[in-house]
């Protein structure tokens, strides 16, 4: 024991870090902030540390080459002892880190912590969020499988839409004119060196600012922030009713971080690692690329926006969002902090959460994508065929063979790209059905060139049988007998 103390003193005589560390640990914080609401920032740092460690472990086996990356992931999953678990920890760590960073941001926003004098802390936080998203995207590319390959194509297509410099951006993103080995190598450099380096530097600044300007006090309705006297009031708060960060605040941080690490380990054990899916071979086109969950909302948005709005939304939307986020502490740097007195702030969070949740859940079953193999696996129910004329049954065959089922559901099976056709005869008359099939319209391609008159007649006569029992077929009022 004495030896340790002597060694510690010898070290501290030279490093002289003991005193500053002690004063940092014991810096006073407002009593109320030793709260379970103030644990998300430290948890984000803990998960980041986990990502760095598991990332280094993975880099010992992973080969950042387009010809070898997928094989090295298989080796990690199946040959290296517990390689699958380290991959799972890294993948789930990513999901948790993004979730915690977002929760941290919402908490900071609702507690008014971005207001004077913590503007710079908030701004650095925005850049930390962007880098975390950057890590997620580049990490998804390093899991070099089909989703990664086509995801790169999507990234390139979005970049290409930037006016003037678009084509240059695409080549810089891909490291050449096409997705190839150079693309993976540069994403590796970004994922492993560039972004983590920036993240570490900015996290350092972020934490330094928390120490310098102090952690946000617990907001009280009616306690307004004013630039003129805030610093003085905060000083009084920490020095008259303050408690030292260690041990008052830190134990909750430690417990929560531990719980999060346990949760990540549990998910990793139970669910295992993410992919890789099929080999990144562009010749395998029987694939439906999907982004990881944190970009699912974007996938939904890109499917649902009207085509002409898409490029402006993609290019101007993020710029506006960034300007709003960066400008927020300057526009509303003073005043109320408590969320009960800031209804617009609360509504904004609710609106964003509901929108993201809706888009994500829609992306889960992607109703806008045709079900590519519905015409071969989704049979037409025999109920819809019994008692039909030969012409109508021939029409059902046409329906199946021409892949109408890929986009239209019948009896609950098939695609949802177009409307379900179980009651189409109630909505459209025979003539309208012919017009719709031949000329298309709305979101439907025209089949005029692909169907001969006999096929069209059969198909429409089948479609005219599709109405619920008891409800009448649509009829053309202008051609019916005139009622007196």
């Amino acid at each position, binding site marked *: 024991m004495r030896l340790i103390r002597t060694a510690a003193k010898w070290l501290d005589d030279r490093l002289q870090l003991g005193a500053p560390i002690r004063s940092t640990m014991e810096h006073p914080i407002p009593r109320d902030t030793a709260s379970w609401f103030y644990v998300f920032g430290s948890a984000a740092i803990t998960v980041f540390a986990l990502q760095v460690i598991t990332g280094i472990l993975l880099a010992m086996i992973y080969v950042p080459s*387009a*010809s*070898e990356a*997928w094989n090295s992931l298989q080796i990690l999953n199946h040959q290296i002892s517990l390689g699958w678990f380290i991959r799972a920890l890294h993948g789930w760590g990513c999901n948790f880190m993004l979730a915690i960073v977002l929760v941290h941001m919402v908490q900071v926003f609702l507690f008014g912590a971005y207001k004077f004098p913590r503007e710079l802390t908030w701004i650095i936080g925005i850049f930390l969020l962007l880098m975390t998203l950057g890590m997620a995207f580049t990490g998804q590319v390093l899991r070099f499988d089909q989703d990664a*390959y*086509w995801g790169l*194509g*999507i990234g*390139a*297509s*979005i*970049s*290409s*839409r*930037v006016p003037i410099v*678009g*084509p240059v951006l*695409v*080549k*810089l993103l*891909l490291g*050449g*004119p*096409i*997705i*190839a*080995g*150079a693309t993976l190598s540069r994403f590796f450099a970004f994922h492993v060196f560039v972004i983590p380096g920036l993240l570490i530097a900015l996290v350092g600044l972020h934490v330094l600012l928390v120490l310098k300007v102090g952690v946000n006090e617990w907001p009280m309705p009616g306690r307004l922030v004013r630039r003129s006297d805030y610093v003085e009031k905060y000083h009084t708060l920490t020095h008259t009713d303050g408690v030292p960060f260690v041990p008052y605040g830190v134990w909750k941080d430690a417990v929560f971080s531990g719980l999060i690490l346990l949760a990540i380990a549990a998910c990793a054990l139970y669910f295992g690692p993410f992919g890789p899916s099929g*080999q*990144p*071979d*562009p*010749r395998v*086109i*029987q*694939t439906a*690329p999907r982004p990881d969950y944190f970009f699912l909302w974007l*996938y939904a948005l890109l*499917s649902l926006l009207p*085509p002409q709005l*898409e*490029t402006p939304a993609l290019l101007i939307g993020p710029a506006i969002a960034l300007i709003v986020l960066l400008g927020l502490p300057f526009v509303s740097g003073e005043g109320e902090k408590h969320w009960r007195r800031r209804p617009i702030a609360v509504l904004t969070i609710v609106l964003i959460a509901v929108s993201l949740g809706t888009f994500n859940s829609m992306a889960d079953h992607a109703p*806008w*994508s*045709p079900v*590519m193999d519905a*015409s071969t696996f989704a049979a037409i129910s025999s109920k819809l065929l019994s008692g039909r004329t030969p012409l109508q049954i021939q029409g059902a065959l046409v329906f199946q*063979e*021409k*892949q109408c089922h*890929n986009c239209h559901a019948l009896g609950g099976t098939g695609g949802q790209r177009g409307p379900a056709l179980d009651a189409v005869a109630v909505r459209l008359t025979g003539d309208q059905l012919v017009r719709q099939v031949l000329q*298309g319209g*709305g*979101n*439907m*391609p*025209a*089949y005029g*060139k*692909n169907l001969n008159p006999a096929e069209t007649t059969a198909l429409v006569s089948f479609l005219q049988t599709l109405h619920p029992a008891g409800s009448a077929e649509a009829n053309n009022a202008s051609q019916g007998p005139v009622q007196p």
Partner: protein
Amino acid sequence: MSDLTRRQMSLRIALLFNGFVGAFLAIPVVRYLLSPVTRGGNKGYDRWISLGGVDQFPAGQTRLATYRNPIANASDGETAEIPCWVRNIDGTKFQVFAINCAHLGCPVRWFPQSRLFMCPCHGGAYYEDGARASGPPERGLFQYPFQVLNGKLQIQAGELPTPGPSAANKDLINIRQTPCA
């Protein structure tokens, strides 16, 4: 006082010297970083690539063909083998479509029964001549310039076609304006 000024002067000269050295070193660094954009980095990407004999593409049919990236190297692995759709319109006229959807680049699939190309990502659909049929794409499928030489179908396809104003799109406009070979 004069001593101090001399030191300040020395510092300034030292900083200036470092600035010069830094700028000198920045030139190769920037050129290295921009090599994917400059011509030297991608020499030969627009060269003609053979898709095989014309007889592999029967008249009236649309078939999947693959080609090797003209500037492939060993570390590209399977990403160097790229597919495209070849439509032989009537035995003499061809259309060669990129595999990438004109919306966001996902691989489109050809359905001969309904004579449509469909995209699995966001629901884009195209007619057999590549024209937009429905969904989010703002335009038809990308087409590669092609030529028939000694009975072989050749294309220029070393660049990923993207919906922005890239070179591939200009080629497409030229093709539309000139009759097929």
